[in-house]
């Protein structure tokens, strides 16, 4: 174990062995950057998780539960995945705990690590395993009409089961007091968006409490993937959320490639970066336009929507799909970018960039616009940390999290994600910048603007230095052993996207766990609106850019 390839892992291994030696069954290293700690007893999970969280500053990335009762060890397995990124280490610590068949509960870690509370509620719904000690065990994914006692992600639940409907009641948090009113908003909204219910408790115009209720469009993606072939599941992964198709398919492909221990041609890695950044650009432009619409500044949104449309047409010209569907394949990419296309690409993009900078300059001088954004929807840094939020929402609150840098993948390791890391001086400057970010809608606006420019620079840099060669490698099939598993991840425009994959017999999927950035970031909206008034809610919501589809898997 001491002969670890990854320096980070050996450091953690020695500390864990020293502190928790008697609780640990084994520690092993897998897939280059995963460190698996298998526990002897379920009861020690909270202590070790808390230690990793508070002493190693690990960020809870996801909790994966899987029904492995019919497989070798005959148990439900819980895997707590922590992302470690201090000191430039690229490590995921996976704490693995086993739940015995006849045991239908597990100890909750939600009080120590608040970010775990949603995962635990999800596991409660989908596997019928109760988190002992979690103060909130109301149903999350399965709504009132779902019969109790049916747990869809257990292996003995047949996917084609027709469920009878039941009528139960969901208890929202009641706020009482003189003058407190409740406003129910949704699940069906004006405008063309997906369903979600928001229960506001208000005092006059001030929001006293907000409770969100989601999962109205739960599609059962994780169950659908089971027993499907790897190629079929790729199509499914792309369709988790239409505007994150590249991020999700990249994360999925990387999970498979990691398990297969295959290495990609350089050109494929570079093209993945190009497509991922294209996705980021058009989505950020759309969100910036949406922010402008929601403050009632239609001119700004019209200009930005034009730019978004130009980028989407560029997507179509380059890849054949406006939403960048079908660009990724296991082992590489499906679409190549010829030199000629690359040249026009850069030309059009530079043109868009000029326009973009003009619009942003206009917006920044518009006092009525800036005033609406400043101090609206403030994300407290403490809450951001505790709820382990990711992406722009985390960066706007001064948490420097970016999977592209922390757990660099594809061709990102050779690229500077932000231009601020060139010299010690600029690093200090960048850190000060980060500290200054207060987590309001204005800082989210600014972070997005910067990221659009960064993405354009990255694309230009990559396209100018595109390596020659193949765009797809054959994946070594012999490594795709039954019950081998791996993590795949990518930074979508919303933040860290985590996929966990376990193969079954015949190279089919055994368990596919998806956690998009929206799942992490939805809870923060309840905190972000606490100092706001009702009419500012749509702006707060838009500036966070949360996906319903990516959440309601």
């Amino acid at each position, binding site marked *: 174990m001491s002969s670890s390839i990854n320096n980070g892992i050996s450091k953690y291994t020695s500390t864990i062995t020293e502190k928790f030696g008697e609780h640990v069954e084994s520690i092993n290293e897998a897939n280059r950057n995963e460190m698996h700690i298998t526990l002897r007893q379920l009861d020690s999970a909270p202590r070790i998780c808390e230690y990793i969280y508070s002493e190693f500053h690990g960020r809870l990335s996801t909790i994966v539960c899987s029904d492995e009762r019919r497989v070798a060890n005959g148990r439900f397995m819980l895997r707590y995945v922590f992302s470690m990124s201090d000191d430039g280490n690229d490590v995921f610590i996976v704490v693995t705990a086993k739940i015995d068949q006849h045991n239908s509960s597990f100890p909750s870690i939600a009080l120590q690590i608040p970010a775990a509370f949603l995962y635990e509620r999800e596991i409660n719904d989908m596997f019928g395993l109760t988190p002992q000690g979690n103060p909130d065990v109301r149903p999350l994914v399965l709504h009132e009409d779902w019969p109790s006692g049916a747990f869809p992600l257990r292996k003995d639940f047949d996917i084609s089961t027709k469920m009878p409907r039941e009528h139960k009641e969901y208890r929202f948090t009641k706020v009482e007091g003189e003058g407190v009113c409740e406003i129910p*908003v949704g699940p069906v909204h004006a405008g063309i968006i997906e369903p979600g219910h928001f229960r506001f408790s208000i005092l006059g115009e001030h929001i006293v409490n907000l409770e969100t209720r989601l999962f109205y469009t739960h599609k059962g993606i994780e169950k659908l993937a089971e027993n499907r072939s790897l190629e079929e599941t790729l199509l499914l992964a792309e369709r988790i959320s239409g505007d994150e198709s590249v991020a999700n398919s990249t994360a999925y492909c990387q999970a498979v490639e990691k398990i297969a221990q295959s290495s990609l041609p350089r050109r494929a890695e570079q093209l993945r970066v190009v497509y991922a950044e294209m996705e980021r650009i058009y989505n950020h432009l759309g969100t910036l336009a949406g922010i402008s619409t929601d403050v009632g500044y239609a001119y700004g949104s019209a200009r930005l929507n034009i730019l978004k449309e130009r980028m989407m047409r560029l997507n179509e010209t380059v890849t054949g799909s406006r939403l960048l569907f079908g660009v990724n394949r296991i082992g590489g990419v499906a679409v190549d970018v010829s030199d000629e296309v690359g040249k026009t690409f850069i030309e059009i993009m530079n043109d868009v960039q000029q326009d973009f900078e003009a619009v942003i300059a206009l917006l920044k001088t518009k006092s*009525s616009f800036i005033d*609406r954004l400043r101090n609206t929807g403030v994300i407290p840094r403490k809450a951001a940390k505790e709820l382990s939020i990711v992406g722009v929402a985390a960066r706007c609150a001064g948490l420097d999290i970016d999977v592209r840098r922390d757990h660099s993948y594809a061709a990102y390791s050779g690229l500077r994600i932000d231009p601020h890391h060139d010299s010690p001086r600029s690093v200090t400057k960048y850190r000060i910048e980060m500290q200054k970010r207060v987590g309001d809608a204005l800082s989210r606006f600014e972070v997005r603007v910067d990221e659009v420019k960064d993405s354009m620079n990255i694309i230009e840099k990559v396209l100018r230095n595109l390596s020659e060669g193949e765009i797809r490698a054959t994946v070594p099939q012999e490594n795709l052993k039954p019950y081998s598993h791996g993590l795949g991840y990518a930074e979508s425009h919303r933040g860290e996207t985590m996929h966990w994959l376990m193969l079954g017999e015949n190279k089919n999927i055994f368990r596919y766990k998806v956690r998009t950035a929206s799942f992490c970031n939805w809870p923060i909206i309840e905190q972000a609106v606490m100092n706001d008034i009702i009419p500012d809610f749509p702006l707060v919501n838009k500036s966070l850019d949360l996906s319903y589809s990516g959440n309601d898997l």
Partner: protein
Amino acid sequence: MFEPSFATLAAGIIQTLVLIAFSPLLTGVMRKVKARSQKRIGASILQPYYDIVKLMRKDEVISDQTSWIFKSAPWINFAAVATAALFVPVMLAYSPFGLAGDVLLVIGLFSLARFFTVLSGLDSASAFGGLGSSREMMLSSLIEPALFLTIFTVSLTFGATNITTLVSSAAGLQQLVTPSLLFALISMFVIVIAETGRLPFDNPATHLELTMVHEAMVLEYSGKLLALIEWAQSIKHLTLLALMINIFFPWGVATSLSAAAVGEGLLVFAAKALAIGVIIAFIETRVAKWRLFRIPDLIAIAIASSMVGIVFFYI
């Protein structure tokens, strides 16, 4: 100058009909200007007429939780606003109904319309209606005093609250601008924008229920009743513009009942109304909606401006 006669009475009724008939056109033009300045093509300027016709033909959905107020409020609203239009001169510097009421009555009629709209917002017991009603009352409790102050500033200058007297004195005014009128105009302009629910006060084009003021109150309406509400809103807009135009820019208004003068008056009025409509639409393109609790600041500007106007009158 004008004697109450059958001819003037007829002219007065025609004036009112002009306001009622052409008000949706103004709305259409303003929407078109907004669309063009936002890089959109926009609907035809006749779209508000098509909308009214379409809504008239449609079925209504009325919540069974509502009372008579919900069904009668749009009628009261429309009647009150249309009655207010009777008192406001358009192309003539004269309104034959001036005997029956002055500018304070016009403001009162607008308040009546608003009162019933607010009640109807509460009547359907939907959360959005209640929000809209409470916001509308908050704003109107500020806008109404500002409007009264502005009218008083004007009344001081011309020595009357009767609209006919106001407009004919304004038309006969030798000076082009007096300071007190100038400040009253600034105030009046802000009030017209606020009263008609335009940006930066309220966004008439939004789909976000949580941010609405006027639209939130009428969210439950459909069909004929909605057509009445939208039409009444247009009439109110044009009536307020007519009031502003004829008090502050009365040049070209007909001071005799000859066909030529009336025709000229109508054309000049149309040009002025369009010009102001375009200016308002353009302003709407240039600003974002203000924070709800900053809107009182803007109305405070209107009040302060009227006060300055009053001070200038006495200096």
